[in-house]
């Protein structure tokens, strides 16, 4: 056996934990599920369709041609034509614009307003919290669709007003989520540390609380993009939304409903389009959740 002799210790610094690239991990987890990749493809395709509608659409989506009405799907009109002889495929492609504009607009406005309200309520607590939360509760007594319907009617239809109405209807979801997140993030010692350093309220909220609330909210925003598109479709199905000649998927389903007995595919295709895009956003949301925070895996 060797005799032990203590050696002088040489390490000046601790060795660090092996570095894992969070971006790499994010990409790997995100792309590891087929449905997420499928969703991403659908979303990218839709964005391309929306941006390049005039180039991609085979026909003018607004051009009537009464002699071509109710054509069955064929080579020249892959998805057929509607009651006014307009090409359904072209209208679907243009409809992507409506859906995406509404989705992005609504989620943008609702998340900005809702998250600010939630953050302020959680950070200051007390009376501020009570006031904001009762306001949110009040908005939440009506079904989202009914609230949006009422507001849109009040404002008088049109794409912009639909965006505003849906935004207001979606504010509560963000406010509540953000409030819950902020309340728990607020309890972390690093917020205490910032207070002890003498940081201002704004600095604490903007630098320390808000960024740490984001991961679940980003997931929620992605899923709400789908939800907003679905709600816009519902509103336009009820006849509230973009002005008639413009293409909206929900309105197309409704148009087709009138001719269900003869040409069921008029309703079928726009419905499938809605479902695909909403499904895509949900799947990507799911994937983002796994990729952003492994601890959240398997939860809602």
């Amino acid at each position, binding site marked *: 056996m060797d005799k032990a002799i203590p050696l002088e210790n040489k390490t000046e610094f*601790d060795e*660090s934990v092996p570095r894992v690239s*969070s971006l790499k991990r994010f990409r790997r987890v995100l792309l590891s599920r087929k449905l997420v990749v499928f969703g991403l493809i659908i979303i990218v395709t839709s964005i391309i369709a929306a941006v390049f509608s005039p180039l991609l659409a085979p026909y003018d989506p607004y051009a009537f041609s009464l002699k071509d009405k109710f054509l069955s799907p064929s080579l020249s009109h892959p998805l057929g034509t509607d009651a006014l002889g307009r090409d359904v495929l072209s209208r679907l492609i243009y409809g992507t614009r409506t859906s995406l504009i509404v989705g992005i607009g609504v989620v943008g406005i609702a998340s900005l307003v809702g998250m600010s309200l939630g953050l302020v309520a959680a950070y200051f607590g007390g009376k501020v919290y009570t006031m904001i939360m009762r306001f949110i509760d009040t908005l939440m007594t009506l079904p989202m669709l009914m609230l949006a319907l009422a507001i849109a009617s009040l404002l008088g239809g049109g794409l912009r007003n639909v965006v505003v109405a849906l935004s207001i209807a979606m504010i509560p979801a963000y406010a509540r989520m953000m409030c819950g997140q902020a309340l728990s993030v607020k309890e972390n*010692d690093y917020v*205490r540390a*910032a207070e002890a*350093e*003498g940081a201002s309220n704004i600095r604490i909220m903007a630098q320390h609380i808000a960024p*740490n609330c984001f991961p679940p909210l980003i997931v929620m925003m992605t899923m709400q993009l789908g939800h907003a598109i679905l709600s816009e479709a519902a509103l336009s199905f009820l006849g509230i939304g973009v002005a008639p000649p413009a293409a909206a998927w929900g309105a197309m389903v409704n148009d087709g409903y009138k001719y269900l007995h003869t040409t069921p595919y008029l309703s079928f295709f726009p419905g499938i389009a809605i479902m695909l895009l909403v499904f895509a956003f949900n799947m990507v949301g799911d994937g983002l959740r796994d990729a952003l925070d492994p601890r959240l895996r398997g939860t809602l």
Partner: protein
Amino acid sequence: MNATESDILVEVNDLKMHFPVLRGLLKRQVASVQAVDGVSFKIRRGETLGLVGESGCGKTTTGRCVLRLYDPTSGQIVFDGHDITHLKKQQIRPIRREISLIFQDPFSSLDPRQTAGQIVGEPMKIHKLTQNDSEYQDTLAELFKTVGLDPAMLDRVPHEFSGGQRQRIGIARALASQPSLIVCDEPISALDVSIQAQIINLLQELQEGNEGLTYLFIAHDLSVVRHISDRVAVMYLGRIVELTEAVNLFDNPKHPYTRALLSAVPIADPVFEESREWIPLEGEVPSPLNPPSGCTFHPRCQFVMEKCKKISPVLKETEPGHEVACHLVK
């Protein structure tokens, strides 16, 4: 030991921190949690005062009052000759630079979305301590080296560090504003045994290398507190029951609670353990919502007298440098 005025960095007089308990429909205050109930102590410049006790004894609350993270219910906190008890948020800023804090949990105490450099640099930015960017970067690198971290790791985020390294980042952050007092709130209890000694030694070395750096060291582990502190205050239910030199604490404990507490700590020495007397402590710590009358320790004290149930003993010096709050001790 007679300390002159300028030797005293912190003076806490009859500090009380009561948290209201709101109940019922109208959220009326029905009671209060007497987390800290009349605590007085002084910390000399350059010394380490240990604050020890079991959970709920008020040691953390005391620390947070000194940091002015809480507004004390009553009493007085004097820091470096200034009464800071009632300073407003804006007025307290300069004091925040002077007093910093090290936390227990190396995970929740660092913002996971900031890099180690941003975390450590934040106090410097808030208090505008550096003139330009290169000075800022140099100071940061210097701080990293001081706490034994490689400055090359400045741009890494907390989850890339181990628990011990994270605690080093926390210490660097506390040092960044060049404070004269650091409140260390259980700084090592979340760390592995083999890492604890690294942090204890680091804290001691920092004090040796920095004349006048003062610690208020809060912990529940008596061995650690005794090891690192010059003087130790033992707290029970919001009050200090005994305050003495660290050596005295183990060799000559006076308060029955201190004795029971010391005997409850197992020592990593089986031979010594066999010869030790264990003073059992019955029951649990009463709720600070409704503390016992008189001496709060009387329901669990084996030497309880009639007097103890009625009159709350005051903390008084029984020997030079040894203060005890017990009717038994003359």
